[in-house]
């Protein structure tokens, strides 16, 4: 596999059953993807399970990747996040908790500036900035660290129902802003 083969082309090759292409994707993306899984699970063994499950899914559904629908890396990242979230849910994430392990790894407010590195990220950031800070933080915590509504509520020290409706309203505002 030549290293210059693009990620979308590698996914196409995987759809045709090419396992070496899958391996190339792994070599190129696994550090980023493992980071996504570990941010959700904060447990390297569980994150490895998530990346494992994700690559089995990628092998099985590479044919569904639509290059016109967004970046290949985003597609891969979404599959890994769903795999990690499935594991988090299977472990009973729904129990509200102040996870102390999250203390240091939670996304600091300035990290959002990382989004400016890419055009679509800068746009999302600009829209996130229009939201109230705690709603913005709730959305980012949920996405990056896989927190449930109950866990976001516990971290923000707000009632569950309030947080649910904040997040819902925030997401809908985000959609209007991005449209």
């Amino acid at each position, binding site marked *: 596999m030549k290293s210059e083969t693009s990620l979308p082309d590698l996914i196409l090759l995987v759809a045709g*059953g090419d396992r070496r292409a899958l391996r190339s994707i*792994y070599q190129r993306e696994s550090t980023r993807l493992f980071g996504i899984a570990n941010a959700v699970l904060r447990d390297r063994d569980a994150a490895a399970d998530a990346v494992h499950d994700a690559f089995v899914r990628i092998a099985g559904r590479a044919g569904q990747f639509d290059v016109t629908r967004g970046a290949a890396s985003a597609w891969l990242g979404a599959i890994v996040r769903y795999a990690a979230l499935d594991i988090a849910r299977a472990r009973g994430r729904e129990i509200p908790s102040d996870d102390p392990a999250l203390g240091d790894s939670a996304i600091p407010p300035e990290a959002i500036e990382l989004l400016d590195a890419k055009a679509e990220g800068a746009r999302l950031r600009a829209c996130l900035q229009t939201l109230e800070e705690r709603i913005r933080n709730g959305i980012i915590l949920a996405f990056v660290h896989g927190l449930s509504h109950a866990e976001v509520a516990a971290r923000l020290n707000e009632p569950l129902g309030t947080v649910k409706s904040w997040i819902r309203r925030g997401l809908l505002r985000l959609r209007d802003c991005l449209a």
Partner: protein
Amino acid sequence: MTPEERQALAAEYVLGTLDAATVRMVSMAAAADPILAEEIADWEVALAPLQDLAPPEAPPPELWERIAQTLEPTAAKRAPSGSSSWFWPAWSFGATVVAGSLAAILLVRPAAPPERMMTVLLSSRDQPAWVVEADGAGLRLAALNPRAAPEGRTMQLWALPQGATAPTSLGLIPRESGQVRVSASQIRPEPGMLIEITLEPPGGSPTGRPTGPVLFIGTLAPATGT
């Protein structure tokens, strides 16, 4: 569902805040509701930049080997051809996700060493659910986590050869059975063939075409070396 509720549900599905039961419900709904599926895809694109906020981290060194083992379980353990004993080795799926037992597999023996193909059928939530192995002699399916269809419904197996416009029914999946075999007289497996399981009324689809939601789907691919 109002358009606004649908939007919000799609967004929360992608954000990841929904509980397991609601996620299952949204997945099932999306399989039958292209607008919902489209909205989920839109949200995936919209929120994707947030992936970059997770700090990259190197995975354990043995992880690729484990993935390769799952996808090619027989490659290292069985002679590539001529073996007539169909032994299904232990799989190394992540125990937390695929906790169920891997059912033993029942088979039609191949007459000659044919091209081997495989796929993993995924649920609408992308859970690996069935392992399919195929060759010139037919198809063999083994459930990773055997589960019966809801009361009053049945699961039906279909194959769609590449270029075909309508799938061929391969029959019903026996209730509470984790294994299915399909002989080559019913279907000639080939790479690119879509294999799917749908939820149908008792006795199977009355129309000869899938009428219910797709529960599991995958595409046969040659089982080549890594």
